[in-house]
């Protein structure tokens, strides 16, 4: 596999909500509160961005390769490691893959939960699936408008993932266009994902941030 990725650092805004036991300490028997989940906003993750030759219409600039991403440290994983379990999720255009099943050697699995990010306080215990011959787990994450040719992520389509390194993550895809413009049009640069995710580092299903 061609090594194209430069390990470019992502523009990542991380809001680590540090663990505080905010409640009163009246009771010494208070069990250890669950560790805080962390919320991360990833902006403009390139997913094989491409432009088109105005004369021929051919795709130029794209390399037809996935951008691999790991949730635990919010990092783009090099293509050299495509055949490893170092990545959880891959993006190429509108195509999203998980590192397991027909898409990779890892164990990352996922499921769609119809809700808002905030309302999912715990990851489902089961129901996780891998990409297989019938399609990709997250195959229907977007709406395509045939008139404006604009791709918009389906609101309420929350990706819940059990990562390759055993953590639970909930992800909301927010935009497919560079800079997440409020009204993307044909001049907007596409194939740039902006998404928000919440990860529970201790391996539990709990997404509490307190």
């Amino acid at each position, binding site marked *: 596999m061609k090594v194209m990725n430069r390990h470019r650092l992502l523009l990542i805004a991380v809001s680590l909500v540090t663990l505080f036991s905010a409640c009163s300490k009246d009771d010494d028997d208070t069990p250890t509160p669950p560790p805080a989940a962390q919320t991360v906003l990833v902006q403009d993750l390139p997913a094989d961005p491409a432009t088109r030759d*105005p004369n021929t219409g051919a795709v130029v600039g794209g390399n037809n390769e996935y951008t691999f991403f790991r949730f635990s440290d919010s990092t783009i994983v090099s293509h050299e490691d495509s055949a490893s379990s170092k990545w959880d999720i891959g993006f190429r255009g509108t195509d999203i893959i998980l590192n397991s099943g027909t898409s990779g050697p890892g164990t990352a699995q996922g499921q769609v939960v*119809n809700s808002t990010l905030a309302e999912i306080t715990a990851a489902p215990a089961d129901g996780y699936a891998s990409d297989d011959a*019938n399609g*990709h787990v997250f195959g229907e994450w977007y709406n395509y408008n045939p008139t404006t040719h604009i791709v*918009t992520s389906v609101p*309420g389509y929350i990706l819940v993932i059990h990562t390759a390194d055993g953590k639970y993550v909930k992800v909301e895809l*927010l935009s497919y266009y560079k800079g*997440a413009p409020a009204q993307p049009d044909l001049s907007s640069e596409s194939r740039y994902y902006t998404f928000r995710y919440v990860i529970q580092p201790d391996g539990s299903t709990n997404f509490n941030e307190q």
Partner: protein
Amino acid sequence: MSFQKGAGVLIYTILFAAFAVQAYGTATVPSDTLPSTQGLSEVVVTATRSDRKLTDVPIPVSIIGQEQIQSSGASRLDEILSEQTGLAIITNHGFGVQMQGMDPEYCLILINGEPVIGRTAGTLDLTRITLNDVERIEIMKGPSSSLYGSDALAGVINIITKKTRSTGLNLQTRYATNQTLDNTLTGSLALGAKGGASLSLNRFHTEGYDLMPGTYGKTVDPYTDYTLQGNLHYLLTPKLRLEFHGRYFDETQSQNYMATDGKDSLQVGGDAKVYDKELNPILEYALSSAWRIKLRTYLSWYKTESGLRDKHADTIYDDSYFNQMIWKEELQSETVLNSKQILTVGTGFSRESVKATRYDSRERLSDYYLYAQHEWRPATHWNLLSGVRYDIPSAYHSQLSPKIAAQYRLDDHWTIQASVGVGYKAPYFRQLYLSFSNPVVGYSVLGARSLREGLAKMQREGQIAQVYVNPGKDAGDLKPESSVAYNLGGAYTGTPGWQLRVNLFRNNVRDLIDTRTIALKTNGQPLYSYYNIHRVYTQGLEAEGTLPLLNKALRIQAGYQYLIARDRQVVDDIHDGKVFKRDPVTLETTRLSMKDYGGLFNRSTHTFNVKVYYTYRNWTFNTRVVYRGKFGFADMNGDNILDDKNEYAPGYALCHLDVGKTFWQGKLRLETGVRDLFNYTDPAHLAYLPGRTGYIGATLNLYKNNSNAKN
């Protein structure tokens, strides 16, 4: 084999009709010869396929008569329909009509009972149809696939052309804003007491208009239409009548516009041509005083050609064509069983073919059908109409379409009507046979019937990265889109001739066809095909009233429609709390509630019209206000659901004013008028509203026999 099937059906029908006559004997019908005139007033043909008095039909039908057409100053069909209660003109590749909240593709447009073909994206462009040579327009709401088969889902609009009985010439000319010139010359010939013939030529030209002068190209490009129409009705023998209607239409539009090709815009220009031809001979034979049969033949051709060039690079931008042809034969038998019952049975077939740029080869579709209709007056106040039709098409599911309607007359003033019926719309050729790859974006679309083969071919060529949905044994098995509809109405007729009609309607539509992703191509783009997916419902209330005043010199009409049109799945999902909406600026996601949901796009909850007609001596004055409430225009936040304030277009009212005067016992009529008096335009949402336009016109009637001058 299929021909034998058709012949079998034909024989069955004849035998059945013969049996019916045998069984019931000769019934009471006025004459054993065919009537040579059709001079009855307020006659409708659409509800039963035979002439009936409007008051005897238990189905909501309204008539736009010649006087209304003439005094409204309308030239083309879309203009007159836009002023009717419960109808809205909407545009999508042409001007179509929305009826009972359903899109133009669900409304059947007929000329003399036969379907006009040639739809683009489901829209039959109503501007193709001139109002010259039109005797009346019948609008029947609610499904009637029980008589007409496919497309008669929301309702039927039937254009009845004039049947002349006099010899003479009619010349009509009208000049309007935007250098619009509409001229018609009609020659007609009386053929003794046996019939008549006419030939008319219409030329319509407009320079179009430009609502956004800053951009390249006009909002509406200049175009010229020619329509040649011929009508003949003639009693060959006292028992055998021939009717013929022929039409030729030719349109050339010189287009110039900015095309958006992926991310770039380019100036393109060239001619777009549309032709259609129709031949429609009908033979009607009276076998006895109570039994007559009709043989209808219908041939129609529709053709478009588009040759657009990239003006800058001087290369071909679009060079495409679309050819459609239909041939229909139908045998109908109408038997008066007794003074209370009439039985109509019919059978026929249609063969349709399409050859177009986007199809691999010439695609054919045939349909054999059989229908029966029973009109029954079990008691003086009761009137029942029931019918059923069975269609056996070659490329999709067979379809059974029943309908039953009842009318009860409470007294001299009150009548109530109720009907239940099934309507369906056959899948389009493109939904069955399309084979298309977008050269710019790279996605592909395959029709349901082309899917298995097309997908296999793409796999062989290495174009497919992954198949999501394997076309199993039911691949290509597309069902028609269908509906079950209920209409319940009442009418009140007052003593000085005033009238109020109310109709409640509900249409449950299922199996609406949409695309679904089948596979991922190696270029990262999807492959789509067509499936029966959506369910929608429309419901509402329609009310219409007429108030004649000043000894009928002044007539006031008003109409109103309340409409709800929703996607069944969206409603269910909202109730289940599964629908969300994201603010595009804050990127906050919230759960959608029913009060946020505006229903289907392009529907106005409230529409109304008020029309005032006044005649004084030889003058006619006519003013109409047509209001269309706010409607969903486009999805702005990407969830494909109408759920945000900025997704609506504002409501608007148009006011039209017309004045006419006749001279020399009706031989000459001069007219003038203004459409959209207050110059309402909304280029962002309603590019098809040209703003205020005015016209002047003259009609000259030169007929040998003055008593028939109205013809």
